[in-house]
């Protein structure tokens, strides 16, 4: 990876690493500190594996108080801190720095309280996303945000990145489903925000903290909203002759007043690979495939699917296949769920995450294909169409430096395209290290300053998750430091 991506490490800190590790061990016990190189190497990257860096040390605290001790120590000693959940970030949000301490929350994974009557759950944030929904499933409830990494990813990571998922079309993303937080600030102060009630008092600090990519503090506990689970859900498969027709169909469904739980889109290259791998029964002679899922009880589902078929007819679908049984539903979803993995088996890929206004879908897909062709690369598209959140997968050979560079260039052009049609750089993966240098495409210097001053309020010395979100030179010409006074 290009090491220039991270700020220059502090040589003084590196020279003191032995002493720092000793002091951390004294603080929270040697069993909670990983100092051996092999152990530290486990934490050198997240799911954006193109970027790697072995941290100075890794600590795995067991309580909020231990997190506070570590942060206070790092604050007093001017040490950088990189918070980490399960390390599933696709934007390098958990990429360590050579002179940083990684603070992992994975040991803090208890459920603290479940209140079915008031429909809330309180958890430590090292718990996995899936474990939250599983804990309440028997009583007929669920926690709505469901990122595709939900088996592994932690609530802490979800909160830091404001994660979405396939269900968010109907139920919103993380920020819409959190009621309260316990966060440790960089100076070790523990702050409670919100609680089991709706709408916290005063400024909406929760809105600022959720999605701050671990740069404001480490969230150790959260109170989440639980929802009653629908009776059932069923998908329908719709195949079209063109991406344009599929895109128009998505817009027409949304405009009709039906809010499906999910609308997923796959283009021809993605269909081909997914079908070869998963044998989901997808048609191979269509240009675009939609999987639309609705929920409710049986009569409602039947009526909704009939309505969707009626809407889709206008766009002349080649294939209309409504699920008729749970096995059938599973098969329809199997290809979509396996798509990323299936593509990964035939090629390395670079997954983009821009969002666009739905009305520009067909046009943008055409331009994405053109951009990739111009760089001599292939692309497959698999994404959440209902909310315009694209995931073009640019296929390349990671061992070929030139191809990797071209993939990166094509990716940047695609994201610029998303912004130019009224969209944004990232819909759910976060800015992290990956899209940091493109922030100026979406935001003016003044917009960035407004954001950076908020960072200075929470972390005046900019020690938390350094080198992410903002271009490295963004702070130089600004007066962000004065905000902390």
């Amino acid at each position, binding site marked *: 990876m290009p090491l220039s991506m991270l700020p220059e490490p502090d040589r003084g800190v590196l020279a003191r690493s032995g002493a720092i590790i000793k002091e951390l061990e004294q603080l929270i016990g040697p069993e909670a500190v990983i100092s051996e190189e092999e152990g530290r190497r486990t934490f050198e990257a997240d799911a954006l594996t193109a970027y790697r860096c072995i941290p100075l040390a890794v600590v795995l605290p067991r309580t909020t108080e231990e997190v506070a001790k570590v942060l206070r120590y790092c604050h007093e000693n001017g040490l950088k801190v990189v918070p980490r959940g399960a390390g599933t970030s696709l934007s390098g949000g958990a990429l360590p720095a050579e002179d940083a301490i990684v603070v992992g929350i994975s040991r803090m994974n208890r459920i603290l309280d479940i209140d*079915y*009557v*008031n*429909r809330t759950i309180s958890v430590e944030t090292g718990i996995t996303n899936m474990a939250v929904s599983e804990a309440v499933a028997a009583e007929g409830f669920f926690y709505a945000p469901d990122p595709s990494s939900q088996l592994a990813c932690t609530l802490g990571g979800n909160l830091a990145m404001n994660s*979405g998922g396939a269900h968010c079309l109907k139920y919103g*993303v993380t*920020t819409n489903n959190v009621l309260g937080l316990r966060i440790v600030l960089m100076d070790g*102060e*523990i*702050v*409670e*925000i919100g*609680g089991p*009630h*709706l*709408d*916290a*008092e*005063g*400024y909406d*600090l929760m*809105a*600022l903290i959720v*999605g*701050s990519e671990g740069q404001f503090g480490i969230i150790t506990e959260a109170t989440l909203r639980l929802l*009653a689970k629908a009776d059932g859900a069923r998908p329908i498969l719709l195949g079209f002759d063109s991406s344009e027709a599929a895109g128009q169909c998505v*817009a027409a469904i*949304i*405009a009709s*007043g039906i809010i499906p739980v999910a609308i997923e889109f796959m283009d021809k290259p993605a269909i081909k690979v997914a079908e070869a791998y998963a044998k989901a029964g997808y048609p191979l002679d269509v240009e675009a495939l939609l999987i639309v899922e609705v929920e409710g*009880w049986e*009569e*409602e589902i039947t*009526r909704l699917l009939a309505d969707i078929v009626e809407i889709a007819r206008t766009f002349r679908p080649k294939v209309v296949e409504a699920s008729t049984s749970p096995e059938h539903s599973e098969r329809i979803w199997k290809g979509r769920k396996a798509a990323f993995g299936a593509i990964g088996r035939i090629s390395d890929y670079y997954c983009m995450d821009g*969002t666009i*206004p*739905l009305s520009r879908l067909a046009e943008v897909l055409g331009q994405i294909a053109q951009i990739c062709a111009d760089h001599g690369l292939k692309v497959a598209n698999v994404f959440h169409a209902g*909310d*315009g*959140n694209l995931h073009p997968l640019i296929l390349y050979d990671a061992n070929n430096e030139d191809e990797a560079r071209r993939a990166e260039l094509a990716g940047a052009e695609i994201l610029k395209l998303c912004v130019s049609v*009224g*969209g*944004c750089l*990232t*819909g*759910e993966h976060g800015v992290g290290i990956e*899209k940091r240098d493109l*922030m100026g495409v*979406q*935001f*003016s210097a*003044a*917009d960035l*300053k*407004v*954001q950076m*001053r*908020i960072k200075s*309020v929470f972390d005046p010395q900019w020690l938390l998750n350094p080198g992410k*979100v903002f271009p490295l030179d963004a702070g130089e010409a600004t007066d962000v430091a004065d905000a902390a006074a």
Partner: protein
Amino acid sequence: MSDLQRPAADWELQFMIAGCAERGMPVEVVGSGSKRAVGRPVESAVTITTISLKGITLYEPSELVMTARAGTPLQLIEAELAAHGQMLAFEPIDIGPTTGGPQGSQTIGAVFAANLSGARRIQCGAARDHLLGLKGVNGRAEMFQAGGRVMKNVTGYDVARGLAGSWGTLAVLTEVTFKVVPWPETAATIVYLGLPDNMAVELLCTAMAQPVEVSGAVHLQAPVAGRLGHAGLKAMGKSVTALRLENFASAVAGRKQRLKEALKVYGKALELDHRETLEFWGELRRLAVMPYRQTLLWRISTKPTTAPKLVAAIKRYMPAEAFYDWAGGLVWLEVPATADAGTAEIRRAAAIHGGHATLIRAEPSVRASVEVFQPLSPPVERLTRELKTAFDPSGILNPGRMYANV
């Protein structure tokens, strides 16, 4: 009356704020001014209103998104949405009439600046949850934008949502972009009469746990229900506990049966048809059951099951009448006027039981002397002050409206 300025363009607003910032001159920021009597009174020589920043600049019904200048009247926006069969899902309440202001005059910017949500908040989120992006001018006279116009966006910090509910103390909004939704095909309400508070909240919570997507869950104590416009309900002399269902017609019919079945231990339910349902929830949206008068109105946010206990605790100190919204999680509480607004007792009860309280209606002298918004914990207070400094270092925007030093 302070000097009233009505900028008609962002640059004009920027110029005015730059002038005030330079002289350290406090500015009262308002939309139509319908909520002027809420919050601590602002002492200022200049008032800036956004009402000349007006108009819908983007509306894509098939993308469920609208952008409007901050001073656009909410009525105009809702009329335009209705013409396309759409609405604001969060059903913004109008606190103008209950605080002695005009009805139906609020601006869309103010709806978000005050984060005002109505009954449907329980199902689909608050105003802030529907805010996608904004433009504004902060106290440094910097024009900036935050968020965008697409539904899913995690590019940078969520500054737009962070400004919701800041009551014009951090920035003057000039434009907002928000999510809209289609009107449901039909709506129905089922009503239970005469339940005491604790049993009513239990009923509301049971209903919320059913997979029927209840989109309104309220309980009106008998005296409050006596102020309803619905002649039948008004005349009963009993408390009213109501649940709303919205969907396509056959789904509403099916869900209604299912809900009544789940709630049959609470007795026989009355039903309101589509027209009555619109009227009933429309009245609540205007807080018509809490009309303007010389009493105090508190807004208390708490856990649903805690709410009846909290109200009972307050009632030990003063007479109080309650309208419970959000399945009990929000209490509009009317208490007699006193010099200290019952602040000590109400806040103590909230502290013991959990929750927070805002004084919505009181004489200006009272609002100037007590904490109108819930006092903050020391660390949150510090973060609040520092955020204020980051946006408005000379403290000129609505100074003191929320908190004395903010």
